[in-house]
């Protein structure tokens, strides 16, 4: 293959009057501007449309309906429990992954991140095949009198499954970014490992941990497919807001719009609340 004649190591602009160069720069700015306008329009239009079409009156009246209120309460409760479990159970694990190297380290990280790329339908099938009555652990769960399908606990399991990787990934990155001297210095001073984790690593990583928590919570609030397949949909027991929206979609589109607006508001409020907690932590003692 012969290299084209002009592909030499020529620095600067080989054929350009300043005017032409200016024109090119102008085109590039225009392309960047168009790109951001396109992306912004595409990403915000659906949300804007929901609020344009859902009148405030309709929104309030949907809030007054027991189905909406029950779905809202259930969504908040189940997602909060799921996120709390993820944070409590997952943070030490993420710390371990970030601070120790061992055989199969990369594999463990990949396995933890796998649910991120799984479609919710696959998550739902997987949960049924593992924790469902006919699933791998179905017999053991039944023997322990634990029932998950059709139960609120099943919703929590589905939410935790799909949203945990978002938090764990972020937590791992946050702990990995802590400079080693902080940890090693503390250990050299004779501070015990649990204390180093709790009083040094966690406070330093806090902003990033909260960001991960917010992402996981947002994902949990919006979960639909895995919840429907694994836990089912029943008012006040397993019907979260996304399921209630789909229920309304086929019978009462304006109600579905109002409920969607409500979910947008609630999700934004959750993200905002967590962001407000974001304030830089006091330096560790």
């Amino acid at each position, binding site marked *: 293959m012969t290299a084209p004649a002009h592909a030499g190591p020529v620095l600067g602009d080989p054929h350009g009057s300043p005017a032409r160069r200016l024109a090119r720069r102008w085109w590039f700015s225009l392309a960047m501007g168009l790109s951001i306008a396109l992306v912004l329009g595409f990403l915000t239009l659906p949300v804007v449309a929901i609020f344009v079409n859902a009148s405030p009156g309709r929104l309030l009246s949907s809030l007054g309906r027991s189905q909406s209120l029950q779905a809202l309460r259930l969504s908040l409760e189940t997602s909060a429990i799921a996120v709390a479990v993820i944070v409590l159970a997952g943070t030490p694990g993420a710390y371990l992954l970030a601070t120790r190297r061992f055989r199969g380290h990369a594999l463990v990280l990949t396995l933890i991140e796998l649910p991120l790329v799984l479609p919710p339908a696959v998550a739902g099938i997987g949960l*049924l095949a593992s924790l469902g009555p006919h699933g791998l652990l179905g017999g053991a769960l039944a023997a322990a009198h634990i029932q998950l399908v059709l139960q609120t606990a099943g919703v929590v399991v589905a939410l935790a499954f799909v949203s945990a990787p978002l938090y764990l990934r972020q937590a791992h990155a946050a702990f990995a970014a802590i400079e080693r001297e902080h940890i090693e210095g503390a250990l050299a001073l004779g501070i015990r490992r649990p204390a180093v984790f709790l009083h040094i690593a966690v406070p330093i990583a806090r902003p990033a941990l909260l960001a991960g928590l917010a992402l996981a919570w947002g994902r949990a609030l919006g979960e639909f497919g895995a919840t429907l397949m694994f836990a089912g949909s029943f008012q006040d027991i397993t019907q979260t807001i996304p399921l209630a929206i789909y229920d309304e979609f086929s019978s009462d589109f304006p109600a579905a719009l109002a409920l969607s607006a409500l979910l947008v508001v609630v999700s934004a409020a959750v993200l905002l609340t967590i962001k407000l907690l974001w304030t830089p932590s006091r330096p560790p003692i």
Partner: protein
Amino acid sequence: MKRPRTLLVAGVVCALALGACASSKPQLRVSAAASLHQAFTRYGASFAPASTRFSFAGSDALAAQIEQGARPDVFASADAKLPAQLFAKGLVRRPVEFAANRLVLAVPSGSPITRLAQVERPGVTLAAGTASVPIGSYSETVISRLPVAQRRLLQANIRDREPDVTGIVGKLAEGAVDAGFVYATDVLATHGAVRAIELPAALQPRVGYAVAVVRGSAHPSQALAFVSGLLRGPGRADLTASGFLPPGRE
């Protein structure tokens, strides 16, 4: 280095264009009730006038899509009510009934349940459709025909409201619920994973499927051919093979 890549891109574009040209048959888009999955997939594979693309879901969700501006070529519903409503709004041409079905009580294959009365016991879980999907309203009809005490017991055991019958069958096949009302054809399609318990004739609702050509269809003549094939033609045979009854013969 530049030229081969350009050639590659050009080649891909040509291949795509050729692919588009080669399939000169028009593409017919059919929105159909979830319970029609097997019958319509077979019928679509042998449908000569057009290639077919299906969207299977709860009839109510498909009707809602059409109300929101979706324009498939054909809409086939598990009831006559939804197509009639769309017809009244001028969204579809006059619907026609093309098949009938029966409702059964379905249980997982290994279930000890053999009678409807056993589903009334406390603690037994029952899956049903949402209020707006046809399978949900047919189940309501069955339950409403029971004596009030039995009706209350059954209603108290409903623990899951699925958006379409596929969801109910899936929950039954996985043993996630103890019983559910589904169409007789759904049980046949599971090849033994789910067992049917016949309902007393007095409880059996009238289950008629209606189909309509959607107004604004890009291929109205092929859409019409698809509908008439369902009434008397290869579609009729595929429906029968899947266990559907002729219209008005439930």
